[in-house]
């Protein structure tokens, strides 16, 4: 450890303790100051009695819970990072928190009598989701990239399901919106009483496991030769981490950031020995969360807008992740998935394949326009609606869904070809999240935004996200791991913002939720025609680039030697991809994963050259989104599941399945 590092750690702790003390003093003031803490019966018995009660039963347990929860989350994060040798593992990135949250939401709706045993429900949900993540990563020997990717996809899938529950049960679940965004508000010491035993037990068990855990830093052969049962060790460490996170979620809702920040900070400050790292991370985590919570309280005292602690912590996690990306040296393990096997020699010419795909698209369109539950007759029928009604109600939505899907598919193909990484897509790179963030902020700030404003906002957000990603990955030539993690960070920010706005209870918030989930409800014929026209013209713009797109995956040297103006071409393609995904977000929301699925499917169908892949993925993307829109409208008739939500559920399952099959 260098001199600076030696001083940095204690310096950081002193700073945090001072900051915590100051902010705690500040939040205590409106409640009556330290007098309220010390003297229950002051000059005015009634109000001082209340102040004392507020301090002892609201302020104090909140502070204690923040400290305990912070320690628990940091400990869980430390265990996970140690077990997986992955600096980016934490309860939130491995979908532990979202599993617990979804389980609690579902239980509140479907089995309200079980409300009393929240802890067990949370634990069950967390265990299930982390098992899925682990099963997916198992074949890849739990490689960091696979786990983070699986965690990200599962997070998005579970979040989509939670959104679905919230959309259709808004009045019943309104009470859980605040908790669902991560809230440490306490009345009484019950939360503290519930968390303390678990934290102590887990600390004890961790202390017992310390020696074996230290061996994890050696290679596998060494570990085995020392007589440590690796599987058992991993399982017990994992069980501890899951128990800790589930406890925190059942008391306070999902809180990110701490489980990621504290262990990394301790490691970056040069502490090496595990026996020092564990207590120091726990301490740092406690201080960080307590400080965050105090800041939230101070903010609440001066502003009417509601800001839950979880939202602030998630919002802090995003820049932290991005910063970590620039600092950490990530293990250059096998990351890129090999392209799937292609049956290329079946003899069908690309034209025929394209014609077949178009035929399927037409069939899907007919289905979407004509079949389903409509009108007053129960059951599924070919529509009794006449042509005029179809033109009015179904055609705009179908057209908008198809255009949005096509544009996303094009963006995905461009990105995948540009980076040579089959996991690249607007959603995973955070471009869509950027549009989503810009739209959320814009709609809440502007009084009545019209379509032009929204298009500008979406494009601006996409470009901003793109710039950020480029700046961060510029030196690394768009290395896959970092690209994806930028996407993770930006999507976390988006989720935080959305959670905060929903928790506020603003009625506009519910509308926002439906719209950002990708509902085509608000599309009318002029907009649909405009979108169709734009998508076709952009497709025509992109097709001539297919020659470049054929050359780019061959590598930089090859491209340059063939006379390609590399940096300009890259920039141009990225800008096009951003524009395409921004416009698509307006119709179908940010997270539909069509941009990921469609190019893969086009490849699987044997269309590998750029021109064919572009055309085929555009058609496939349009068809997929069309079917998602149709399914969403019919499944829960007369309620409507937004198209983007349907597509993201399908897409997430697709990616998870793909991960499971990867060798």
């Amino acid at each position, binding site marked *: 450890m260098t001199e600076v590092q030696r001083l940095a750690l204690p310096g950081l702790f002193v700073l945090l303790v001072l900051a915590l003390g100051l902010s705690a003093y500040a939040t205590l003031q409106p409640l009556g100051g330290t007098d309220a803490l010390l003297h229950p019966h002051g000059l005015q018995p009634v109000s001082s009695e209340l102040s004392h*009660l507020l301090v002892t039963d609201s302020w104090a347990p909140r502070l204690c819970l923040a400290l305990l929860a912070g320690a628990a989350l940091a400990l869980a994060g430390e265990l996970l990072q140690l077990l997986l040798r992955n600096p980016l593992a934490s309860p939130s990135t491995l979908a532990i928190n979202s599993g617990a949250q979804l389980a609690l939401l579902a239980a509140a709706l479907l089995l309200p009598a079980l409300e009393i045993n929240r802890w067990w429900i949370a634990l069950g949900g967390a265990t299930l989701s982390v098992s899925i993540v682990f099963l997916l990563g198992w074949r890849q020997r739990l490689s960091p990239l696979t786990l983070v990717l699986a965690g990200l996809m599962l997070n998005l899938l579970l979040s989509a399901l939670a959104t679905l529950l919230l959309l*259709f049960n808004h009045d019943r679940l*309104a009470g*859980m919106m605040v908790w669902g965004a991560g809230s440490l508000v306490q*009345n*009484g010491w019950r939360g503290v009483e519930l968390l303390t035993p678990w934290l102590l037990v887990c600390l004890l068990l961790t202390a017992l496991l310390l020696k074996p855990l230290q061996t994890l830093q050696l290679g596998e052969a060494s570990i085995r030769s020392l007589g440590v049962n690796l599987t058992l060790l991993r399982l017990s460490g994992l069980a501890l981490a899951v128990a800790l996170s589930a406890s925190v979620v059942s008391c306070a809702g999902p809180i990110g950031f701490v489980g990621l920040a504290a262990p990394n900070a301790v490691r970056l400050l040069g502490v090496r020995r595990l026996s020092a790292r564990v207590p120091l991370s726990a301490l740092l985590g406690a201080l960080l969360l307590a400080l965050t919570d105090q800041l939230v309280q101070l903010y609440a005292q001066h502003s009417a807008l509601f800001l839950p602690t979880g939202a602030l912590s998630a919002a802090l996690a995003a820049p932290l992740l991005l910063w970590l990306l620039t600092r950490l040296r990530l293990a250059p393990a096998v990351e890129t998935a090999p392209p799937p096997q292609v049956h290329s020699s079946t003899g069908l010419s690309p034209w025929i394949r394209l014609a077949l795909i178009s035929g399927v698209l037409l069939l899907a369109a007919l289905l979407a326009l004509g079949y389903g539950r*409509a009108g007053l007759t129960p059951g599924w029928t070919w529509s009794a609606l006449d042509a005029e009604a179809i033109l009015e*109600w179904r055609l705009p939505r179908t057209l908008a869904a198809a255009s949005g899907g096509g544009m996303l598919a094009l963006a995905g193909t461009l990105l995948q070809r540009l980076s040579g990484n089959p996991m690249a897509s607007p959603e995973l790179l955070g471009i869509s999240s950027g549009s989503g963030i810009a739209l959320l902020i814009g709609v809440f700030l502007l009084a009545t935004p019209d379509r032009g404003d929204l298009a500008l906002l979406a494009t601006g957000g996409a470009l901003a996200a793109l710039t950020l990603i480029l700046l961060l990955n510029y030196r690394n030539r768009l290395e896959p791991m970092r690209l994806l993690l930028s996407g993770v960070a930006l999507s976390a920010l988006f989720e935080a913002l959305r959670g905060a706005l929903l928790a506020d209870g603003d009625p506009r918030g519910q509308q926002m939720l*439906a719209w950002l989930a990708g509902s085509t409800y608000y599309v009318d014929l002029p907009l649909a025609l405009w979108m169709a026209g734009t998508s076709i013209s952009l497709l025509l713009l992109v097709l001539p680039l297919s020659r470049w797109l054929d050359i780019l995956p061959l590598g930089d040297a090859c491209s340059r030697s063939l006379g390609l103006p590399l940096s300009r071409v890259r920039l141009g393609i990225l800008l096009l991809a951003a524009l395409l995904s921004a416009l698509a977000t307006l119709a179908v929301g940010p997270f539909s994963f069509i941009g990921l699925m469609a190019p893969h499917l086009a490849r699987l169908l044997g269309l590998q050259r750029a021109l064919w892949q572009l055309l085929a993925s555009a058609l496939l993307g349009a068809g997929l989104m069309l079917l998602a829109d149709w399914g969403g409208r019919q499944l829960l008739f007369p309620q*409507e599941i937004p198209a983007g939500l349907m597509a993201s559920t399908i897409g997430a399952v697709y990616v998870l399945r793909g991960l499971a099959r990867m060798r």
Partner: protein
Amino acid sequence: MRSACLVFCLLCMPILPAAADTRIVALDWTHAEILTALGQTPLGVAQIPAYRRWVGAPQLGDQVRDLGLRAQPNLELLSALHPDLILTTALFAHLESRLGRIAPVQRLPVYIPERPFWPQLIELTRHLARLSGRQAEGEALLAETESRLTAIEACLHTLSLPPLLLVQPVDAHHVRVFGRHSLYQAVLDRLGLRNAWHQGSNAWGYRVVGIEALAETHARILIIEPVPFGIEARLERNPLWQYVSSRQTLAPQHLGAIWSQGGPVSAQRFAEELERVLLPPASCRNEDQQND
């Protein structure tokens, strides 16, 4: 009094032209409530299960179609119903252009905050009665409400009652407190009762506050259903809630589910619920029942 009204209506009916049965769709629950009370069953209402939980009465028959979410009524279903009129409020203004393609749309604001509540209630009921061609039923409904409220007011007038605090728990730490711009306040004013909450409310008549905000009040706390499952038990364990309720003269009591933006039927039900909880058993309430 009621029989006199009925005779009056019967006499009126031959005079008024018989109105065709207009097919009306009501997206807002207040409109649905008033129309049903007038005998004009709406063709469709949004979120019927939630209506049953939050509004309760008058009950919607099985023939009323569920149109989906209030903010996103199913347009195909709506057009298949072939309504003559669609009623909306300012909250659904963005839907109007779309709805206008199905049937004429009328935007009837439920209650505008700047104007006094009770005259708006009367005006809204009369307007809906005109639209559905049931002016007589409208007047009867209003007269019945008026007489009921007057009777209850007379009963309560004799007692000196503390101010009331109307709350609805949102979760274990927050409650909705009802104040101005809600039906509850209008009925309280009408019955001569005082609301203990003076700190303002939003355009829908309530404010979400932490329980500590209620600590300084001296009032009778009335909890309005529906309460989310499990919240009741957690509230009772909450020391702050225990403190707040212990400082009042009586323990908090429950009122049945009544829509805070309701119409005359909700107003009557609210007044009757208040009568039920506020009056001691042997009182003018029993005499009132004997008179009917």
